[in-house]
């Protein structure tokens, strides 16, 4: 049940109606049942895994809170993390490791492979669950006593399969002091859902068709213009796809009285790679910073260790996306760029440049990010190198992005620039009514006339 299907909207409407029509004590049961139903609609076989991880971390956290002995607390933490990483490792990385082992042993690459179906959103809900256990271990979060509350935190359907990765503190602050959304929040929620829908169906899915046609048949599109437009199309696809999903998740949560953290802040307007990672998949960046980079030592042990920690964090961040060398390279590439920016002067890449330099820096950053996307999207390393060679070749004619989609992109850029300065999308919900109505009507027409409705293209991040 994809977010951009009529079935999902029927499910959402029924869930919201049941939620608000029910007495308060049973609302959490309704949300939990809806969340499990949503997950089961993909594949009911994933349910035991989700339940197991929920039970393990729920018990581990309560136990950890009761135990005073630091050694035993650490042992419980390790046990919990091992269970999470064990499941994640098995489902996500077993075949990758098995193929490497087979290569080392000079056997057939599939010699030790298993037919494994990756449970949907496993990377997201395990990270969310692990952050909770670590927070309890650090005594930054109290263990949740009620299993239903905890199960809902893990399985809450707006963010279950592709984030944002919500901290327990954020979720339960809303949950335990739940207030019905005020009018402005309801209007904002609807706007976020529609905006997400437009991003997904009218932009991401349109660019997906261009990116797919390029990357699935590289030989048919030689030359630099085709390569840049193919890679550019993927850059747009992945941004609009993932941020569209997140916008919808934020909107749905708002309608149910929950406030999710922002996950994207116009990342392609970043003026440096450092800035990019403050704007792109913010909840993952935050997770990697708090649970990996800082525990590794962060920037507390000198320049060399800082670079090591940065690169290591980004390598693992890359690997989080998928079991392939391409993701590792993508992570390493970003880690190296972040390290380089530190070498060149941290302040220069963290503070906004002079407005005259801003466009230039933004274009440079976007180009660097696009080079990284080659590894992210290409099927393997050979293809990645081929695409890079094409991008920097001096031949070829004609790009792949049609003019009308370019116009649509230009309009999006203008909206993003206005949003960067004025946050007008947020302000629309405050009125006047005609402006809100005009925005909703424009969004509905975008979905109707430009949205891809003939086929349901899955969200890119569902595979992670």
């Amino acid at each position, binding site marked *: 049940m994809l977010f951009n299907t009529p079935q999902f909207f029927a499910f959402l409407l029924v869930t919201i109606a049941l939620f608000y029509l029910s007495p308060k004590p049973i609302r959490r049961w309704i949300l939990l049942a809806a969340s499990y139903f949503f997950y089961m609609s993909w594949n009911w076989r994933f349910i035991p895994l989700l339940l197991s991880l929920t039970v393990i971390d729920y018990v581990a956290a309560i136990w950890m809170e009761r135990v005073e002995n630091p050694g035993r607390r650490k042992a419980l933490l390790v046990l919990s993390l091992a269970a999470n990483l064990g499941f994640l490792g098995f489902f996500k990385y077993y075949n990758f490791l098995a193929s490497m082992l087979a290569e080392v042993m000079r056997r057939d690459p599939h010699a030790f492979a298993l037919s494994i179906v990756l449970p949907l959103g496993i990377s997201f809900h395990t990270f969310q669950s692990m952050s909770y256990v670590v927070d309890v271990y650090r005594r930054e979060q109290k263990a949740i006593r009620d299993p239903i509350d905890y199960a809902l935190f893990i399985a809450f359907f707006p963010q279950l399969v592709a984030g944002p990765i919500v901290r327990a503190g954020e979720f339960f602050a809303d949950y335990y002091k739940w207030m019905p959304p005020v009018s402005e929040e309801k*209007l904002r929620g*609807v706007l976020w859902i529609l905006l997400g829908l437009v991003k997904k169906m009218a932009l991401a899915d349109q660019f997906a068709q261009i990116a797919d046609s390029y990357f699935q048949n590289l030989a048919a599109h030689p030359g630099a213009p085709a390569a840049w437009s193919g890679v550019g199309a993927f850059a747009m696809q992945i941004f609009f796809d993932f941020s569209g999903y997140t916008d919808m998740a934020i909107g749905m949560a708002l309608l149910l009285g929950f406030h999710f953290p922002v996950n994207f802040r116009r990342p392609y307007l970043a003026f440096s790679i450092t800035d990019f990672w403050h704007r792109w998949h913010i909840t993952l960046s935050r997770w990697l910073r708090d649970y990996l980079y800082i525990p590794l030592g962060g920037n507390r042990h000198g320049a060399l260790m800082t670079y090591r920690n940065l690169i290591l964090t980004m390598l693992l961040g890359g690997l989080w996306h998928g079991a392939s060398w391409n993701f590792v390279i993508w992570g390493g590439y970003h880690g190296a760029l972040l390290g380089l920016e530190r070498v060149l002067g941290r302040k220069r890449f963290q503070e906004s440049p002079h407005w005259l330099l801003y466009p230039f820096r933004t274009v440079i950053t976007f180009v660097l990010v696009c080079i990284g996307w080659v590894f992210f999207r290409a099927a393997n390393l050979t293809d990645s190198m081929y695409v890079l060679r094409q991008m920097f070749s001096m031949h070829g004619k004609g790009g792949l992005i*049609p003019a009308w989609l370019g*116009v649509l992109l230009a309009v999006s850029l203008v909206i993003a620039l206005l949003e960067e300065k004025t946050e007008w999308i947020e302000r629309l919900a405050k009125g006047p*009514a005609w402006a809100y109505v005009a925005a909703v009507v424009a969004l509905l027409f975008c979905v109707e*006339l430009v949205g891809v409705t003939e086929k349901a293209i899955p969200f890119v991040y569902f595979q992670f």
Partner: protein
Amino acid sequence: MRPAPVLLASVLVFAAIEGAVFHTGIYPWIISPDSSTGSVESVLRNERLRPKTGAQVLGIGDSRMLLECRISNEHAAETGYTFGLIGTAGASPRSWYYMLRDADPDARLYRAVVLAVESYDDADKWGDEADNDADLSYLIARLRLTDLWEFSRSYHDPYQQWKAARGILLKGLVYKRDFEDLLRHPVARIKYVKQSYRDSFMWIYNYQGPPDSVADYRVDFNARTITPPPNADPVRLEGLKNWLLAPLPPESGGQSRYMKYWLGRIYEHYRGSPTRLIFLRLPRSGWARPDQPRYNPHSSVRDLAAQPNVTLIDEHFFDSLEKPELFRDQLHLNGPGMDRFSVMIAQEVSRILGPPR
């Protein structure tokens, strides 16, 4: 702001604009004449604008209904009837109903409507014609909100039913591809549309079929082979093989149910009107395959023939045209075949109707 009134106002404004642009003639006016919708709109517009003096006969069918009105009307002095045609490539009996409903809303414009069918036996096809996806695209400009139930329910596949229902409600969803094409080349589109408005009637009216034929092909039904001439077009050869040598689809009765429903709807539209419905069976191919579909005494057209004002032209009336030298491919008559077909229709319809009153 209170959410409910604002959201309701948003939906109402959207529906009002959507309705004004897509549920009226505004968008169909600029639709690409080469699109499915555009081709139906063109033939209907041409027919609407065609001067209609004297007794009129209207032909309808798919791409095989190759009635050249120019040729038929050359015999108008002799036959007493002037012919028009709203046949469109790919149009199905379901499309014919909606096209006729709009071409002749009061059911009294024509002395006869000539409907060209593939078979008098409702021979089944490999696919379910009720699930023909293209009908929605052909008809979208003709469909009204009141058609939502009947049209969408006429599909068997639930997804097609859903697609048809949402398409009738939100026509922009069906016009989407055309709209994207309009965004690509807006100026060229408007220019082409204007040119089509000006010239398309004469393009179609003066169309002369191609002279080439499949006479150089040799078909051996016993050996199940087709021997092409040197340098034969592989597409044409493949088409001949599929049409003449591939096994016939199993009989399921599905096509009969489909034809009975939609031809029945056409009959209902004309029931009690002065218009006669005349069915003809199209010339099948340059070669008649030996394994013809089983005779069906209760097929859609044979059952309808028992009704007043319905006539079937003899099933074998056009057999004399089933010669390879009169076909340009496995299905379609060539120029000389079309000329003879048109004269035969004009004369036979005139004989059935008698002199105009």
